[in-house]
């Protein structure tokens, strides 16, 4: 019995209750659709949303859990993971709101779509807490494979097929590269798969620098694919253009958040000694993403592609926090992702509403929308302005915090580049807003002139309205009342043992051999802290 109780302590299954709820919801949706059939399947999306919200509520109860490791170290339910899992679950809940009408109208099967999306969420949530190489890989594949399926969901549309195929091929290649990196780690650390043990194993190896550097580069390549950082972004525009819009919304928020969670945990916990190297790599990724994402977004004529490129740029901003590699840096990443969740999903909700009503997503077609649909115009404008970082809105505070954290860490050049890039981004966001608001009635586009009467009582439209208003309210209020979110992000970082122990580990080992980290010009940032 002694053994049994000890074992259940180590298992600590309670920590994955939120994921368990998601699995239960997933099965309920699948089986419910099977038994109840088409008619009764209308309620299934709401069951899914209820399940996701329940899962978020249950996450709250594990805040500051005494023993954050579960299942013999393969999962870590610390506050860092909780906040990321919350972000992912919330983004799915909002995405489901916007996909109900969309999927019905494009003639797909809704409940299976929701089941696949819930699986993607499950993968993302597990990825955010995965603390072990095998777990990381399986969770990553769960997320990726369900993403491929969703991308190709509109199978009668050749662009959707193309997007799915491209995503699948590039994704599989990047998974293979990631897996190769993990196998190197496994070999270097003497057969360890749990991340902290890998760090210890790596510290003991003499002369494994080349192998660990290759492992680092390969694993970052895998992660960079997930967050679509620039040299690994080629799939993004095509996939974003071809796949169903709600999927794009999920990919640009939920999937990206999972990627960042993985990046923080993997790099900080498993590669504490290589910190200068991975900061250097992320600096390059951030610079390229910010420049290319924002510059190419300028030239876009389709709203969907515009948001695709802007999301590449936004990922570049978030990476500043990663490069800072300080507590403030990580906290600012979380804060920005929280805010980005609402503003980006709000923008996508607006985009879906417009394309559902008019069948187009060309930017010029938005001209004069203000006259016909004030609510949509308001929501879309606020979200876009917030994405650009206009002062009273949430996005502004998120960016300020990121830049502040970067400045504190001594990344002056990167922050200045970020400022320039966000000024550029304001230009293209404002262009859309101007198109919608400023145009005189006679300059209205044909599409808007034929705009159907706004009816919210059609099936599936109410959730869209709820989603739009919800993200609108949060985006406009989260800026002024950002304090709770801010404290949430900060405490989650402060309470996370893994980050702390990794930094002390780093300090101890750098005290022993100085030449490791001081050889790099960026090292003083850590020492200051």
């Amino acid at each position, binding site marked *: 019995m002694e053994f049994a109780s000890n074992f259940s302590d180590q298992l600590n299954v309670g920590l994955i209750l939120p994921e368990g709820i998601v699995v239960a919801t997933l099965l309920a949706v*699948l089986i419910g659709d099977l038994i109840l059939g088409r008619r009764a399947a209308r309620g299934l999306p709401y069951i899914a949303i209820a399940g996701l919200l329940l899962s978020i509520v249950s996450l709250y109860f594990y805040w500051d859990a005494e023993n954050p490791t579960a299942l013999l170290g393969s999962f870590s339910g610390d506050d860092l993971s909780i906040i990321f899992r919350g972000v992912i679950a919330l983004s799915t809940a909002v995405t489901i709101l916007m996909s109900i009408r969309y999927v019905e109208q494009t003639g797909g*099967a809704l409940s*299976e779509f929701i089941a696949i999306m819930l699986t993607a969420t499950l993968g993302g949530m597990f990825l955010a807490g995965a603390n072990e190489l095998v777990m990381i890989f399986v969770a990553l594949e769960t997320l990726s494979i369900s993403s491929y399926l969703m991308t190709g969901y509109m199978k009668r549309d050749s662009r959707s097929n193309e997007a799915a195929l491209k995503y699948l091929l590039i994704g599989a290649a990047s998974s293979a590269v990631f897996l190769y990196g993990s196998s190197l780690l496994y070999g270097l650390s003497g057969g360890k798969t749990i991340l902290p043990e890998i760090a210890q194993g790596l510290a003991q190896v003499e002369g494994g620098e080349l192998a660990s550097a290759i492992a680092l580069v390969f694993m970052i390549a895998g992660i960079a694919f997930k967050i679509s950082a620039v040299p690994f972004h080629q799939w993004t525009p095509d996939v974003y253009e071809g796949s169903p819009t709600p999927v794009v919304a999920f990919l640009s928020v939920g999937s990206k958040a999972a990627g960042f969670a993985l990046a923080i945990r993997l790099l900080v916990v498993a590669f504490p000694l290589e910190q200068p190297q991975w900061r250097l790599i992320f600096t390059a990724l951030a610079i390229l993403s910010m420049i290319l994402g924002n510059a190419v977004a300028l030239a876009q004529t389709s709203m969907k592609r515009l948001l695709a490129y802007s999301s590449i740029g936004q990922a570049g901003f978030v990476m500043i926090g990663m490069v800072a590699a300080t507590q403030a840096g990580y906290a600012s990443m979380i804060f920005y992702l929280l805010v980005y969740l609402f503003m980006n999903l709000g923008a996508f909700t607006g985009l879906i509403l417009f394309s*559902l009503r008019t069948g187009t997503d060309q930017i010029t077609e938005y001209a004069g929308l203000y006259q016909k649909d004030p609510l949509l115009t308001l929501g879309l404008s606020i979200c876009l302005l917030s994405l650009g970082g206009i002062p009273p809105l949430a996005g502004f505070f998120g960016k300020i915090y990121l830049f502040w954290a970067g400045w504190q860490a001594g990344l002056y050049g990167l922050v200045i580049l970020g400022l320039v890039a966000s000024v550029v981004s304001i230009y293209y966001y404002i262009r859309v807003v101007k198109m919608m608001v400023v145009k005189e009635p006679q300059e209205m586009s044909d599409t808007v002139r*034929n705009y159907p009467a706004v009816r919210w009582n059609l099936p599936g439209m109410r959730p869209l309205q709820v989603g739009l208003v919800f993200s609108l309210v949060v985006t406009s209020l989260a800026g002024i009342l950002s304090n709770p979110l801010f404290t949430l992000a900060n405490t989650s970082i402060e309470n996370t043992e893994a980050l702390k122990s990794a930094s002390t580990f780093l300090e101890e080992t750098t005290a022993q051999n100085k030449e490791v980290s001081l050889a790099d010009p960026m090292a003083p940032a850590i020492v200051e802290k």
Partner: protein
Amino acid sequence: MDLAQGVQFVSFIILAAMMFSAALGVVLLRNIVYSAFLLGAVFISISGLYLLLNAEFVAASQILVYVGAVNVLILFAIMLVNKKEAFPALGRNWLRGGATALVCVGLFALLGTMAISTPWSIADRAGVAAEGSVIKIGKHFFSDFLLPFELASVLLLITMVGAIILARRDLIPEEPPESGLTETEAYKLQERPRELISVGKSESEDQS
């Protein structure tokens, strides 16, 4: 070196040579069917290497999964869509080939250097031979790799659902459209193009 070691060494050389040449053939041959068959040869040689490493279960699974399923699927795809297409010859093809070769050789050199120069810490040398590898794998599945194992079941379930969705022919039930949902031009999406296939009695036609 006694007899067993000698046999092992010779088998390793043969398997490695077979894998290497087959893999090169997969990449270099112009005929895609040959490439697909050679891919099967690569998988079989890898399985032989697993056998040399005492991982008999992995070896058998490798054959079952990669040769029996993956490779057959690839062959199916190739043979069902084996349309000969004359691609226009690209100018300066040797340049592309050269650049690709350069990158590949460079990568190989890098990884080779790494594999040789790194002091791999091989702590756990106690092989799996003492206990059947199946038993050992099973124990790992239900102890330290429990969570990935369970998650993989969800992954497989949804992969199956997704594959069926992508492969099945959509049957759109002939029910009257709801009021207010009439197919106005404005409510059509770009993703809409579809031919309506009515649900008929002739089931056999749809299943073939």
